[in-house]
């Protein structure tokens, strides 16, 4: 067993992107609109942190202010981009032809492949919070694709549920990579079954848990490697976590 790093919530990169000034063409919204982004890994102007974990390159905890804030249409290639909506409503528009609205517990996988643009907007009247995850693909310049699904909180209470990856019911992607979610009451211990070959990244959305003996609180995270199973002891009610397995 090996802990690669522990990253406390406040140690993440922080960017504040107002919709005016240098970002005016990139960030949508009225003049007071703002995006805040806490990055677990190096991303854009934040380059003094951790350079991802294997094929996992971006893990951003973003908040868009209400009434139209977000990212204007902009291009991507290759990256498999996922959004897990935690609160508010996200409008996703892409050049595959999809216009979608995602609310709490909804998530999407957008594979940019040979080229695709997207816009991410909060046209609601409350803050929108989502986790954005970017993963390198197994093959370059594949046909772009978009899929969405919903985390069923009731059906998956107190168990580790796979959202993305090679598991029945999860959204498949062209990479050895999984995202699972654990929503659990306090006092329960879970065994996260995985593979020694994969890098593991555990992120606490809400609540508190001991992961392989390390206490993680809200928005804390840690990475492990060379583990076939990880014990997660939940110590607060309403604990909600994302558990990532990434090819190194």
């Amino acid at each position: 067993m090996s802990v690669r790093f522990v990253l406390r919530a406040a140690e993440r990169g922080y960017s504040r992107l107002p919709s005016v000034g240098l970002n005016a063409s990139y960030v949508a919204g009225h003049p007071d609109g703002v995006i805040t982004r806490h990055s677990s890994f190096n991303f854009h102007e934040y380059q003094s942190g951790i350079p991802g974990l294997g094929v996992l390159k971006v893990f951003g905890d973003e908040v868009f202010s209400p009434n139209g804030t977000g990212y204007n249409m902009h291009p991507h290639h290759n990256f498999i981009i996922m959004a897990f909506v935690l609160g508010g409503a996200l409008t996703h528009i892409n050049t595959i032809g999809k216009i979608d609205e995602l609310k709490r517990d909804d998530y999407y996988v957008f594979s940019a492949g040979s080229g695709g643009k997207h816009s991410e907007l909060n046209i609601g009247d409350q803050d929108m919070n989502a986790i954005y995850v970017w993963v390198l693909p197994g093959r370059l310049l594949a046909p772009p694709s978009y899929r969405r699904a919903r985390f069923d909180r009731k059906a998956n209470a107190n168990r580790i549920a796979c959202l993305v990856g090679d598991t029945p019911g999860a959204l498949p992607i062209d990479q050895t990579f999984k995202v699972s979610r654990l929503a659990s009451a306090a006092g329960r211990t879970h065994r996260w079954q995985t593979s020694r070959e994969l890098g593991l990244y555990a992120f606490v959305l809400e609540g508190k848990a001991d992961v392989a003996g390390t206490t993680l609180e809200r928005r804390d995270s840690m990475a492990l490697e060379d583990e076939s199973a990880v014990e997660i002891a939940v110590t607060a009610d309403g604990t909600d976590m994302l558990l990532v397995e990434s090819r190194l």
Partner: protein
Amino acid sequence: MKKYLCLGCGFSYDEALGLPEHGIAPGTRWADIPDDWVCPDCGTPKSGFEMVEIPYYEPARPQ
């Protein structure tokens, strides 16, 4: 011949192909591209690219 990927947006540069539409001839080595070159799609600096060993997607051939 190597491939490089922009960590800002995913744009890929292939030494074998170059970027003729941006004035970079096929066969141009990454090291020979100026340090002040930026991603043509998103403006990420050259230093924000990473070498990748990922094969191209190939469509399935009809049987």
